[in-house]
């Protein structure tokens, strides 16, 4: 391998890594701003909206056994269209007119970090 190739590879790799970090920070900010009000800052479903009378528990994203049952595409779909699209409660709002496609993808990845799990394929 020539010196030039190593330098290029290093530059590319560093560039790639920093792009990923920026996205991860942004995803956390997105989650805390839009989702934590119901799902809680740590994703346990305990945001400030969830009082004793709240009609339906927002999903706890740290429960891997539940989150594994959803594919990444399922999660993206429910974020964009809201609960009813997957026969869940309308208390889960539709964010498709608010968030960009890239922002929703970043959120899906962030939820995977919270559950520390991978979804079923598809």
């Amino acid at each position, binding site marked *: 391998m020539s010196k030039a190739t190593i330098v290029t590879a290093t530059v590319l790799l560093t560039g790639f890594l920093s792009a990923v970090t920026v996205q991860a920070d942004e995803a956390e900010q997105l989650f805390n701003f839009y989702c934590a009000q119901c799902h809680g800052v740590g994703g346990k479903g305990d945001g400030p909206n969830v*009082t004793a*009378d709240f009609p339906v528990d927002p999903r706890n994203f740290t429960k891997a056994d539940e989150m594994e049952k959803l594919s990444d595409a399922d999660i993206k779909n429910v974020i964009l269209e809201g609960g009813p699209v997957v026969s869940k409660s309308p208390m889960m709002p539709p964010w498709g*007119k608010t968030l960009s496609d890239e922002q929703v993808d970043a959120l899906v990845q962030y939820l995977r970090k919270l559950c520390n799990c991978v979804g079923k394929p598809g």
Partner: protein
Amino acid sequence: MRFAVIVSFGLGVAALSVTGMVGADPAAGEGVFKANNCGDCHYTQGPAQEKTIGDQMAKKGPELWYAGSKFQQPWLEQWLQDPQPIRHIKYNSVTEENPGDHPKLAAGDAASVTEFLMSLTVAEVEAGVIKPKKSAKGRLIFVKKMPCSGCHEFPGKKFKGGRSGPSLLNAGTRLNPDWIYAYLKNIDTFKPIRMMPNFNGVLTDKDMKGVAQYVANFK
């Protein structure tokens, strides 16, 4: 004779003071607004400036550049003298309670600042479109079809609503009904970055009007 003179004199004073109020000068109110450092937390020059979540988080209070189109004048003048919390949780927070420590104004200053804030109107709010109504359809949208009640306190029977958005309990005396509809329709004009989703396109125009009528009827 003497009685008539006194009466007409009295009427003259009453007429004068009424004219005095109507003719009051928003610029004087702007002076009081500045002198009380209200501008440290509220901006009054439109259009909306926020582009990122960071911009929104840096704000210490809601924008007031369209206050004259948003609020009802009697509510505003009263609230500035006795500012009870509107949001249950602290502005821009999802973990802390509203400390309820908003600065207060004396009656005279409140009247003057109200005069200034009510002069801040915008063309996007069309007058006379929304009449407050106990709309059954509006209720269905607010509590069943859409998550409005998940974030807003409202006059519900058992479930009284969420806490992350402003309380809408007294929306009928606080907010201009036409502004509620304009806000649902053009949310990005008023609050480009906010914790509330954009419902234009999720709800039809008719549904946005229906839910605005319903909210405007909360007393």
